[in-house]
Structure formats: C-alpha cells, structure tokens
C-alpha cells in the first residue's frame, strides 16, 4: 500500500466484513463495465520521496530565476523583498491546511487575520469595505465591472482605458462575453488615458469606467479629473492600483472611486511565475451587499465574546446559485495572510519607506539610462516605480543580451503595442542597489 494510505490488509478485511462485501471491487459495481478503466494508463510509476526531491530539483535548476539574476522587469508582477517572518508564519500548517472558515468557532485564526487584512486594504485605499481577497488583480477588476453592470439599471456601456495592464483588458473582455454589455476602449495619449476622448465617450448609458493608476506604464494618472467626469456622467469609477504606491500616494477614494481593485502580490508574495497572487477588492458603502467573494465580519458569541464569521453569505453562489452576484467561491486566503503579515511587519512607516525607495531607485535608473545617450524618455510623465524609455534597437535582443549578463531586462512594449517600437518598460524595486543599477544601465547602454 502506498505510504500516504494507512489501511493495512487486515484492517481492509475487517472493514469489508462490516460493509458486507468480499472485495473492494464490488464497491465500484455501479460503474458500467464498458467504461471501467483498464491498465492502459501511461502514468509513470510512483517515486519515493528521495527520488522526487532530486527530480524536482532538476526541474527547478532548468530555470534561471530572479534568485540568480537581477530583475528590472515588472509589467504587473514585481520583485520586492519579502521578510523571512512572512514565510515562517504562513507555513504554519494550522493556516495552510485549513479549509474555508465556515466553522467559525474553530477558525478564529484565519477569520481574524482576514478581518485585519480587510482593515489594512481599507486604510490604504480609503474605501469603506474590502472583501477577503480574490484570485488576482486582473479578475478582481473584471468582477468589479460585472458588479457595476448588474447594479446599473438600463445602462450597458463599460469604458476601459488602454493604459491599464493589457491582461486586465483581455480578462475583462472574457468575463463580459455573454453579457449584454458594450465594451469600449479609450486610447492613451503620451502614456496616460486620453482624458478628452474619455470625456467625449462618457454618456448617460455608461455603467462604469475602468482606469489604472499608477498605470501600466507606471504613470500616475489625473484621478481627480477622471473622477469628476465620471461623477458628472453618473457612472461608477473602477480604479486598479498598486497598494504599495498608496503608502505615499493619494487614496483613490478621494477621487471618488466606487471600486478600488488590484493585485497585492507586491506585498509579501513571491512572483512565482505568475501565481498564486491575490486580488484585492474594496468598495464604497453602497456596494457592500453586492460585493463578490467572501467577507469576514465581527460578531459576538452566545456569551457576548467578540468573534469573527464569514458574513453576508446570501450574496454567494452556495446560497443564491444562479442568482448570485458572482460565481466565485474561493478567495486566496493564504496569499492574503502573507500580505497581512507583510503589512504588519513593514508597518505604518515601512510602507512609506519602501514606496519611496522604489520611486527614488526608479528615477535614478531612468537618469542613468538616459545618460548613456542610447535611451530617451518615452512619455515624460510623473511615475511611481516603473517607467518607459525608448531606444533605437530591438528590445527582444537587448533583453536576451542582458539575460546572459545576469539581468532580467524590462518589458518589451512592442509585444503589446506594435507602434511602440523600441519601447522598454523598466521596473525598479527597493531590492536594487546602486551597484546593480549602475552596472545594468551601463550594460544596457553598451548593448544598444
């Protein structure tokens, strides 16, 4: 018997006696004979733990990661430092082997951690409520569009700025497929939303406008202006943002955002080849009962003691079935726990310091690139930790060259925007040192 299965032969016999069968196969007699699976499986034989670990190490060694290289790549996923205590605490198995905390009395740990997470997300975004997290920032944005759509009567137009992460646009498109909605895209101008075009497109049929700030190019958008236009049109404002930037930047709530969403991977979660990350989702008071996903609320027990439970569950699929506001079931609780621990560790001062260090590092990197004489500013707008430059070169080849020299270069903008030939989106986190930046920019200049 396999080592993960404890039944011994004699126990199996006793159990079969209790059931009243001669062989285990009898228990599968309801499966029609013609679809019983024979022995034709191509699956390999099982491995011992010793063999497995060697095999997995071999696979891992076929990758060259940001552990070995210096990363200047972002485009939605960022190489931030993760304090050791984050992993030490999330790897407590009382957390990671737990089910969803429906049985509140034995799940106070996860529930309270999520309550703390919701509070932190509200603090940073300035919103009134946040859910317990979602799959990722991209799908959280799509869910916000969906909720805006079901709550808006008679309107059916959703406007998406082209300056948001291209993947967000793609996933919104997928999520809106099959719904009665007109999706419109507003182009960007000099790297930020074309505000005039947005103003012209907004009308009394507009459900919501979706923007990102800092946007895909790292640029801080004119949120006040956008907020005013949206308000005038009576539409909902969906803002995708980087929680880290909100350590120093103005919370989107102040521009009138109705939904603030994004990916909290930068706060305590590894890049992990794209997942699992986590989407955060915060909203103003009027949408609380429409929010998708799980939500934790405070309550009392029969003796008046404070405690936490999953709440407002009547929104959810397991109660409302086809009438639910979303089909989402799980949240990314463990990733949310990592972000909560991260935010606790960096704390009130640290979140500002990390954000500011990224901004300073990014400015220095940009300056040094321009100094080489091979790069010029692409948009010249205020940015947070990521910026776009332009070089007269094939960025794909530049990145391959840098890779050989020990660096992960920036995002090749031409991949998503063919007219931005030579466009290079460079992200710089607090992990990058002066030596690394000096070296990287010099090598990049030499390679062009």
């Amino acid at each position, binding site marked *: 018997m396999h080592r993960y299965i404890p039944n011994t032969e004699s126990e199996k016999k006793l159990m079969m006696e209790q059931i009243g069968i001669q062989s285990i196969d009898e228990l599968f007699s309801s499966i029609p004979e013609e679809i019983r699976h024979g022995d034709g499986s191509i699956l390999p034989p099982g491995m011992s733990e010793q063999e497995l670990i060697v095999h997995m190490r071999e696979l891992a060694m076929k990758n060259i*990661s940001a552990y070995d290289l210096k990363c200047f790549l972002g485009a939605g996923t960022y190489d931030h430092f993760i304090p050791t205590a984050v992993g030490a605490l999330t790897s407590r198995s009382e957390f990671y082997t737990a089910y969803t905390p429906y049985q509140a009395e034995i799940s106070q740990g996860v529930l309270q951690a999520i309550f*703390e997470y919701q509070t932190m997300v509200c603090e940073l975004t300035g919103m009134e409520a946040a859910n317990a997290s979602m*799959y990722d920032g991209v799908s959280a944005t799509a869910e916000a569009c969906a909720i805006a759509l079901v709550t808006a009567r008679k309107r059916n137009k959703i406007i998406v700025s082209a300056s948001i992460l291209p993947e967000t646009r793609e996933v919104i498109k997928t999520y809106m497929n099959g719904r009665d909605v007109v999706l419109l895209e507003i182009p960007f101008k000099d790297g930020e939303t074309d505000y005039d075009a947005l103003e012209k497109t907004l009308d009394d049929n507009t459900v919501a406008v979706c923007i990102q700030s800092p946007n895909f190019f790292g640029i801080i958008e004119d949120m006040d202006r956008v907020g005013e236009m949206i308000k005038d049109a009576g539409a909902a404002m969906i803002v995708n943002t980087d929680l880290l930037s909100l350590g120093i930047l103005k919370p989107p709530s102040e521009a009138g955002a109705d939904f603030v969403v994004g990916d909290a991977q930068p706060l305590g979660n590894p890049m992990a080849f794209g997942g699992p990350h986590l989407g955060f989702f915060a909203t103003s008071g009027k949408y609380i009962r429409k929010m998708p996903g799980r939500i934790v609320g405070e309550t009392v027990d029969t003796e008046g003691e404070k405690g936490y439970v999953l709440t407002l569950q009547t929104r959810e699929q397991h109660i409302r079935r086809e009438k639910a506001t979303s089909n989402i079931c799980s949240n990314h609780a463990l990733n949310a726990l990592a972000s909560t621990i991260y935010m606790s560790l960096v704390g009130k001062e640290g979140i500002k310091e990390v954000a500011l260090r990224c901004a300073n590092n990014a400015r220095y990197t940009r300056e040094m690139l321009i100094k080489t004489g091979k790069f010029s500013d692409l948009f010249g707008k205020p940015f947070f930790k990521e910026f776009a430059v332009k070089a007269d070169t094939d960025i794909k080849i530049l990145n391959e060259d840098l890779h050989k020299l020990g660096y992960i270069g920036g995002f090749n903008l031409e991949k998503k925007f063919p007219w931005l030939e030579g466009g290079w989106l460079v992200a710089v986190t607090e992990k990058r040192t002066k030596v690394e930046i000096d070296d990287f920019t010099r090598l990049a200049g030499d390679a062009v």
Partner: protein
Amino acid sequence: MSKLIFEMSRPGRRAFELPETEIPQKSSAELFNSKSLRKSDARLPEVSELDVVRHFTELSNRNFGVDTGFYPLGSCTMKYNPKINEKVASFEGFTELHPHQPADSVQGALELMHDLETYLAEITGMDFISLQPSAGAQGEMAGLMVIKAYHDKRRDTARTKILCPDSAHGTNPASAAVAGFDIINVKSNDRGMVDVDELRKLSGEDTAGLMLTNPNTLGLFEKDILEIAEIIHDCGGLLYYDGANANAILGQTRPGDMGFDVVHLNLHKTFTTPHGGGGPGAGPIGVKERLHAFLPVPWIEKTGDKYEFNYDKPDSIGKVKSLYGNFLVLIRAYAYIRTMGKEGLKQVSENAVLNANYVLARLKDAYDVPFGDRCMHEFVISGEKQKEMGANTLGIAKRLLDYGYHPPTIYFPLIVKEAMMIEPTETESKETLDDFVDALLKINAEIEEDPEMVNTAPHTTVVRRLDEVHAARHPVLKYDFPE
C-alpha cells in the same frame, strides 16, 4: 479573544528596515505633485517582529487544519497535504521566476506544466488541458465559455440553456449564469440520480449542455451516464464534468470515457494541494479534440526539446486570469502525481471508497440513510430522526467541534433534509474513522438524554456559538480605530 494587530501598535515601534543606499534619496514632496500625495498615513500597525510572530502564531493556535485533526467534509476532499510538496514548491527556481522572463530561462517550469497537462489528460480521458483557471468555479466559467464558443462557431446560436441537476454544487448554476446561459434544473429521482425521463423532456434544440458531478453530491455514481450522454449529444448539446468528486474514480473510470466533453479538476481536492484556509486552489480544465481550439491562451507547446507559450489561437475564449495559472499550486499537484504514480492513484480511489462505505455501514442504524447503504467516496445521512428528538443538524455539527472534529458538510445537498455529507478520504486510518463514528453515536445518545446541550454546542472551543445573523444585519467589516 486575541487582540487585533492594530491594538498592539505602539508609536515608533518597528519590525522592518531598508538597507543603506548611496542613491540620492528625495522626499515624496520633492518627487510628486502635492495633489497626488496622501495627506494622512494609512494606519498600519507599529509593532516589533516578535509582536508579529507571537500574534500570528496565536492566531494559528486558534485555527483547525488537516494537520490538527480529521475533516470529514463532504465534496471537499480534505486529505493529507504532503510536506514534500510544500518543500519542492518553495524552491527558488520556482518561486523567484518572473512570468515574463525569456522562454529559454523558464524551460523547467514549462516542462513541468506541459507534463502535468499530459498526466491530467490521461487521468481524465480528455485530449487537451488548460492549467489556467485559478479554482473550480473559474474552471467552470472557462469550460462553459468554451461550450458557448463551440456552438457560436457552428452558428448554432439558439443553444442558450444549461441543464443542472438539483443536487449540483451552487457554483454550477452560478457559473452558467456568469457565462451567459439560462439554467434549467433537473430533478433527481427517488434513488438520488438524474431522472433520465425528465432529462429527455428538458433537453432539445436549445440545450447548450449538461453539467454533472459523477459521482454526484450524494456520493452515488450516475450509472445511467452513458444514456445521459447519448441524450445530450443526440440533441446537439455537450457534457460538462464537475471534477469535485474525482477522488472516487481515479484509475477506475474516466470522464472522457463516460462521454464528457469538458472537465474541470480541483487540484486542492483530489491532488492534495492545501486549501490554505480558503485558497489558493487551481481548477484546470480538459476538453475533447473538437473543443481544443477554444481553450484559453496561452498554450504551452513543445517543438523538439523546447517549450514555449503560444498566444496565436484565434478561436480561443481568451484569458480568464492573469498569466498562466496558479503555478505553485500546479507544482504541488505535479509532485503528488509523481509520488503516487499509476498504481498509487488507483489505491487512492479504492481506499477513499472503502473508508466511506465503512463509516456509512457503522452509522446507518443510528442515522437515517436516505439513499441506500452503498456509496462512492462520500455519502449523505439525514439528521431528521435526531431533529424529532430535539437537536438539529447544526447542533450535531457544532457538538462535533467539542469532540475535536471538523464537522461534515451540512444542509447540502439541498434535496436532503438535515443533510450531513461525509467524506473521510483515503489518508485517514481505521482508528480515526472508528473514533469519529463513536463520537457521532455518542452525540446521538446525548440527544436522547439532553438535546439542548447539543443545540447549544460548542462548549469547549475558544469562542462559543457565534451569531451569524447579527454579523449580517450589522456588518462590521473592519477595525474601528479610536480617534
């Protein structure tokens, strides 16, 4: 009650420090336009590292997981999460990969994903797999969009309805609605199975497909599955397999052989990736050849010895999530499949089904068994008899907490009154099962004596029964900071 981390905050205390830098540092006022800056700080806590470590350790002590004790939670497959899977998923060669690195530098990751696709295709009997969906519900949505795209491509656009049994998980109709379908509920017959005559009446030219869990949520194998598949296919519809209960059939039969066209698997159930207190999971989908073109992009393709992503798939439904899937979860499932191998996976289903039948056999005299005394990997009992004696199913569930067990899934499926859905899994030993059965029998005896004691359970947990109605009526969703 544990203090909230905010209540532990002391001005000036810290747990974090940046390294010194030679790069000139400017203040935020120098870097940004003042109208872009926040005026007051976000009130994150000011605590020491030890404060944080003690706080979250204390919270973990107030939490129950598979490593704490038995979780006979129906349809959730709370089996043991092997430690080696955690270790290999934490290798820097996996965790520190940026998703947009050049393909040459991520060949190990792509190979792993490619091989996992091959294994899952083999296990399900499907032709192609997409690892992208984050969870079962997202897999359902993606799978239903594939079905929609297939009909649309054939200009067969009148197919607007998805059939769902009334015993289905709530996500099934919810996902079908999200994908733009109308939902038709199919009643179960008195044996707990899809009523084939009813299905025949309900299906027709407007049927896009049928969603089915097999074994179903009552733990019964739909033995008319071949006839069901024929009915749906004959009317031009497709069959969707909800893989929530795949633990029962590993190596025994395959959805692809039953006639299903689309499948999703919950890697956090059948393939031992931890539930994480609510996620992350992973919900890959599999399809038959005729639906291949519609799978989400990117696809992982192998040319010679080289793997790469291909986005150029014009008929694809697009992307359902960022990037490529919950990669670290996929690693764990891959490691599990390699650990079990072909023989081991077959033993999984054999022992999961044996364990479930054993628990059922021991409980059937004390509790009502609405659908007979044989089951697959899980079964449903009813607490109606106990309710007549004065204690309801919720009370029984909460009383189990006092005995150190996570309760079964309760009040589901909706078609059984006072339902308790029990799934022991193959990783539990006979003595654990015996102890659990003894607890349920003891609770039954307690109800005869003192039902109120059961109704007011739990009595020994860190908090007593929590008022969920109060929480929903007066939502307090975040800490109220003192001024």
